[in-house]
Structures are given as C-alpha cells and as structure tokens.
C-alpha cells in the first residue's frame, strides 16, 4: 500500500461530505435537501474509492476501485442538477418519467465502464504510471470515445442546472441573491478542476475533481448554516405571493402592471394575459380612484368603496408602497387591498346600535324628568289644598272634616314618598343618580331628623334615644340630603316595626377615617331567610299587625345603593324576638373639620 500525505485532503473531504450528507437528511422535509444529501453521499463514495485505488499498487485492484468509484462520478452531476432544479422551484420536473430518460446515458455509461477492459470504449487502455509530481503509482486510463460522450452529457446536465440557478439569481430579491451566488461559486470549482484534469492542463495525474466537488459541497453547506438554504428555499417566495388572500398588484416605475396575484385576478375578474403590461389606470381606473400623485412619497392609504362587476360594492383598505432596489431608485410600486366590507358593516351596525342606545338613554333621562314633574305636581296640589283647608284658610271646618283631611294628607305623603323612591331607583338603575357633596353640620342635620322622628316614636309610646358622638366632626363633607334620607328610612322602619320598647339611633366615630350611623330597635327581629334578601328591591317584611302599611320594599334597597355610591357599607344583625341593628359605615372625607 502506498503511503503519502496527499491522502489527507481526501480523508478530510470524505469526513466533511459524509457529515454534510447526514445534516441534509435531517432537513429532508425541504424539497432541495434530498438531492443535496444524495450529492454529498455520491461525492463521499467517489472520494473513498478514488483514495482506495490511489493507495494500492495493484493494477487489478485499481481498476476494480475505479469502476466502483464511477457510481459516484455518475451520481454527483445528476444529484447536483436535481438540487439546482429543486432549489429554483422546478422540483416537480423530477419525476419517474424524466428520471428514466435522464438515467439512460449514465446507466449505459456504467455498463460500458464495467466492461471497458473488454471493448475499451470508455478507457482506451488501463495501465500503471508513476506520477511525476507526487511520486504515486496511479492508474493510467486515457479516454475512449464513450468517455467524451459521457463528458458531454455530464457537462450538459450540469449546465442545465446552473442555467436555472443563474436565472434564479437574476430574478431573486436581494435577500436570496447571496444564496444563489454562493451556489454558483460552489459549482464552478469542480467545473474548472475537471476541465483542467480532462484536458491535461495540470501536471499531476492525481484527479482532484472529487476534491473540488467536496469543496463545492462544503461551500453550499456553509450557505445552509449561514443563510438557511434548506430552511427557506426561494421557491417559497412565489408560493407566499400566490397564496396571499388580499389583492396584490405590482407596478413597474411607469405604473404598468408587472405582477398580479391570483386574489387580484379573482376579485376583479381579470385574465392575467390581458392585463399584464397594461397601464394601471386603464385596467383598474374604473374601480380604484387612485391618482398618479398617490404613487409619490413613502406610502399612501385610503379606504375605498369599489363597485365590482356583477357584485355589490365592497370596501377595501388600499395601500400603495414604493419599491426600491437601491437607495433613491424606484423599482416599482406595490398596491395591496384588503376587503374590509364586513368590518364596515359591523361598524355601521355598531354605530346604529350606539345611536339607538344614546337615544334610548336620552329618552330615559327625559322620561324620568317628565314622570317626576307630572307625578309631583298634582301631588303638590293635593297636599297644598289639603293643608290650607285644614288650617281654615278657606273657612272653618268641622272635626270630622279635619280628620278626613288628615287622612288625605297622609295618603298624599305616602304617594309622594313612593314617587320619590321609584325615581331614585330609576336613577340608580340608569346610573344617573349623582351625589350632591357639600359641607354640612352633622349635629344640625341629624338633630332635625331625630327631632322629627321623636314625634313619630312618641305617638307609639316608644322610647326613642339618639346620640351624636362628641368626636364626630363639627363640619362634614357629604351629600347631607341623602344621609338624611337613609337615616329617616332606617329610623322610621324601626319605629314602624317595633310595638314595644325602644328605638336607638347613634352617630359614632369609628376611626380617623370612618364614621358610623347605627339604628337599633327592640322589635320582633328578622328571620334568617328574610335577612338574606332584605336589601333587595321590592322585598317586604311580614308583620303581625295586619293594618300596618308595610311599604313597597324599596327603602332599604335604595339606602344600600346610595351607601355603596358613597363607598360605604351597610349591614344588619338581627335575631327573631330580640330586635335588629342596622349599621352603616362611611368614609370620613379629608376636609371634614374636627372640633377642638
């Protein structure tokens, strides 16, 4: 066996091409990965058997390895061309029929190679020769006429593949041009080296073609790692363009149609052959009111209503962008159009719904104001005349008349408080109840309430006790009318439902930032199931005394909602037979004035 340091380039190339082949196989989902992997394995085969032959002294062994090696020699150009076709988007050209045709010459070549020592068609003779440059004993195999047939065939298919790569290079966007350029450089190397060997333009008899093919493969492999060749083949660019659902029209710098995607042809019912190269305005002017000036600048946007043949008009977002292939050089224009008809229809529907809601809300506000006025005005007439009559303003009245007038007045007052609570509830429901926050003196306001309700309590022989804690501020900031309303509601409820004993009302300071209104009674208490729903609107409590006017069940509900509007809380504790305590906790506003 011959030993020489010339083996090292082959050993390195074998290792690398084999590794590259396995790497490509891992990417086999990509259409270009499989022919690339095949190229790697064929190149490896070629190098392995060429090296094996070189290292032997034996002629018969050298001839044998040369024949085996030729599988690689035939396989590399075929797989290179298949790779070039797949990479340039023509992978569908590779099928059983075309493969069968393409393989005719290589198969015949291989048969001739294997039988060449009989007929000498491929290699005219086979002998040993010592290479003057390397000192190695090599196989001397001058070319027979079939060699040249095969060489012509091989160069033709290599040229065929290279042609499509070069064309891809010229058509590709900048992002892909480096990929194609690297591919061209990679294939030129073995062309050159093979030509040098075939035409005996180099002095050594060592055939470095397999090495240069390995070099090509490594360069391509670097391209894969660096630029992701197998991750994004340029063919995907076309597939992406064709699959865009929006209308995409590409114009040249003269505003003539250069490209249309299938969506644009479908939308405007056009035949591409008729419109390619035509002025944009001539074809689309009837649908798209886009002026030439709109192509100036960095971008144009407009919402356009387009009336398309045989269809109802549709709304589109129209974008026009300028395409540059170099700085300050316009390569063309890109028009994209997105169908926003559904969006516009929804927008219109929402607009109508919004207008309806605004009108309904405005109507509700007006209705509330009208109802309030229309109910309270006649109530005022009833109570006004009743009061004046009871006073004797229209003449002396009898005791009986006085008693009747008192009942009329009581009923009018009941109706008035019902109207007030219904209107409050309606305002709360519609979010229209607003607190009138102002400074007030709690002792005066709450004192008035206690004074009025003491009379009510005394009428039922109830002991009414009230307390305003000394640490309650002199001046507080809140809606005093609403606080009065709540307190009156709680105390009058307590008096209404208590037959014996006492009612207590307290205004207490809880902390620096909180205060409490508390009303408790010695009434019958509230059952647990009633406690759960006591603050719900229109909930009425049962009462043992049937002729008590039970109320309409809004007072506590409204009180709770108003307390919550004030960011406070209301809770009730009660036990049947032991009375009830209602506690309202409220925030003390920061501008309340403490007594000193």
């Amino acid at each position: 066996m011959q030993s020489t340091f010339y083996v090292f380039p082959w050993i390195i190339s074998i290792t690398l091409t084999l590794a590259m082949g396995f790497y490509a196989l891992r990417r086999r989902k990509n259409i270009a990965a499989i022919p690339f992997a095949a190229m790697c394995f064929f190149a490896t085969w070629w190098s392995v058997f060429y090296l094996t032959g070189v290292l032997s002294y034996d002629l018969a062994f050298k001839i044998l390895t040369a024949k085996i090696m030729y599988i690689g020699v035939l396989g590399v150009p075929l797989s290179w061309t298949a790779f070039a076709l797949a990479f340039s988007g023509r992978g569908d050209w590779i099928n059983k029929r075309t493969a069968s045709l393409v393989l005719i010459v290589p198969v015949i070549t291989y048969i001739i190679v294997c039988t060449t020592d009989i007929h000498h068609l491929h290699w005219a003779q086979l002998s040993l020769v010592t290479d003057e440059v390397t000192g190695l004993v090599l196989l001397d195999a001058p070319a027979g006429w079939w060699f040249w047939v095969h060489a012509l065939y091989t160069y033709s298919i290599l040229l065929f593949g290279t042609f499509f790569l070069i064309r891809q290079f010229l058509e590709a966007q900048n992002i892909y041009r480096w990929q194609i350029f690297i591919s061209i450089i990679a294939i030129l190397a073995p062309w050159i080296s093979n030509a040098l060997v075939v035409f005996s333009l180099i002095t050594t008899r060592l055939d470095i073609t397999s090495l240069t093919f390995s070099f090509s493969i490594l360069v391509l492999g670097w391209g894969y790692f660096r630029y992701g060749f197998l991750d994004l083949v340029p063919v995907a660019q076309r597939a992406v363009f064709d699959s865009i659902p929006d209308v995409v029209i590409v114009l040249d710098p003269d505003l003539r149609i250069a490209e249309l995607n299938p969506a644009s042809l479908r939308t405007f019912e056009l035949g591409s052959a008729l419109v390619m190269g035509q002025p944009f305005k001539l074809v689309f002017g009837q649908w798209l009111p886009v002026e030439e000036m709109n192509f100036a600048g960095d971008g144009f946007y407009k919402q356009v209503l387009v009336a398309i043949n045989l269809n109802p008009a549709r709304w589109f977002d129209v974008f026009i962008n300028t395409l540059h292939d170099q700085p300050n050089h316009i390569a063309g224009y890109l028009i994209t159009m997105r169908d926003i008809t559904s969006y516009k229809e929804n927008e219109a529907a929402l607009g109508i719904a919004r207008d309806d809601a605004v009108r309904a809300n405005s109507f509700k506000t007006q209705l509330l104001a009208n109802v309030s006025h229309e109910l309270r005005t006649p109530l005022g007439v009833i109570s006004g005349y009743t009061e004046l009559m009871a006073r004797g303003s229209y003449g002396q009245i009898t005791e009986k008349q006085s008693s009747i007038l008192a009942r009329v007045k009581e009923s009018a007052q009941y109706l008035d408080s019902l109207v007030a609570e219904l209107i409050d509830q309606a305002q709360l429901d519609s979010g229209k109840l607003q607190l009138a926050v102002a400074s007030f003196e709690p002792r005066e306001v709450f004192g008035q309430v206690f004074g009025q309700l003491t009379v009510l309590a005394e009428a039922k022989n109830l002991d009414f006790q009230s307390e305003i804690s000394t640490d309650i501020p002199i001046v507080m900031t809140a809606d005093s009318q609403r606080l009065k309303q709540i307190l009156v509601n709680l105390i009058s409820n307590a008096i209404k439902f208590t037959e014996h004993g006492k009612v207590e009302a307290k205004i207490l300071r809880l902390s620096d930032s909180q205060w409490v209104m508390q009303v408790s009674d010695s009434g019958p208490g509230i059952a647990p199931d009633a406690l759960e729903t006591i603050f719900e609107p229109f909930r009425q409590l049962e009462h043992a005394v049937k002729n008590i006017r039970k109320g309409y069940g809004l007072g506590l509900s409204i009180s709770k909602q108003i307390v919550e509007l004030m960011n406070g809380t209301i809770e009730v504790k009660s036990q049947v037979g032991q009375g009830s305590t209602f506690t309202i906790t409220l925030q003390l506003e920061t501008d309340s004035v403490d007594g000193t």
Partner: protein
Amino acid sequence: MHSKPLVVVVEDDEYLADIYSDILKGIDAEVIVFNDGETALMYLASASPALIVLDLNLPKYPGSKILTFVRDNPKLRDTWVIITSADTGQVADLNRSAHLSHNLLTLIKPVSVDQLEQLARRLISKATD
C-alpha cells in the same frame, strides 16, 4: 307703587299657582302670578319684587333662563328666588353655578305649605329690612 311686599310667582300649573298665591297672601304679601315664562320675563324687566317663586319646569321658556335673566339684571341681581322643582338633578346643576345660586333657595315638589310660608316670610323680611 306697592304698599305690601311684592312677590312674583311663575308657575304654569294653575292650581299650584293658586296654592302659592294663597300661602303668600296669608303672610300679607302682594302676589302677581304668571303662568308662562315669557310674560313673566317681560314683567320682571321693569319690576322690583321682594321675592320670586319660580318653577324650573315651565313650558316653552325654561325657568333657568328666567333665573339667568334675573341674575344678569343689576336691579334684580340680589333678589331672593325660591326655586320649585320636582327634579333634584336640575337643581343640583343650578347650584353648581355660583352666579345663578346667589340668593337662591330650593323647595322640592310637592312643596309643603308650612315650608313655603316660613321661608317666604323670612326672605321677605330680609328684603324689606
């Protein structure tokens, strides 16, 4: 020339206007009643009442416009006005304006006879002092 203090009542409801008039006459005031805002405005342009009782919800000519006229008029700027209204929201809106809420008190409908009587007596007394 009025020997008794003059009170102008602007109220479109006849019955309520009658009740207010009876109450005010009961405290020895001279009462002039207007059932519409336009006529009231024409009168107030040249009058100097001690008190105005004004309904906010007047048809055609809202009470708030009459109030604005009163407060913008140098002769009437300090005249006390009792607003009667069923709409607390409307009253709250008025009270937000310092200009309009000057010398202004509110009675929410239905107006109590006692309340109107006591208030009117107090304000007339202030005006005539």
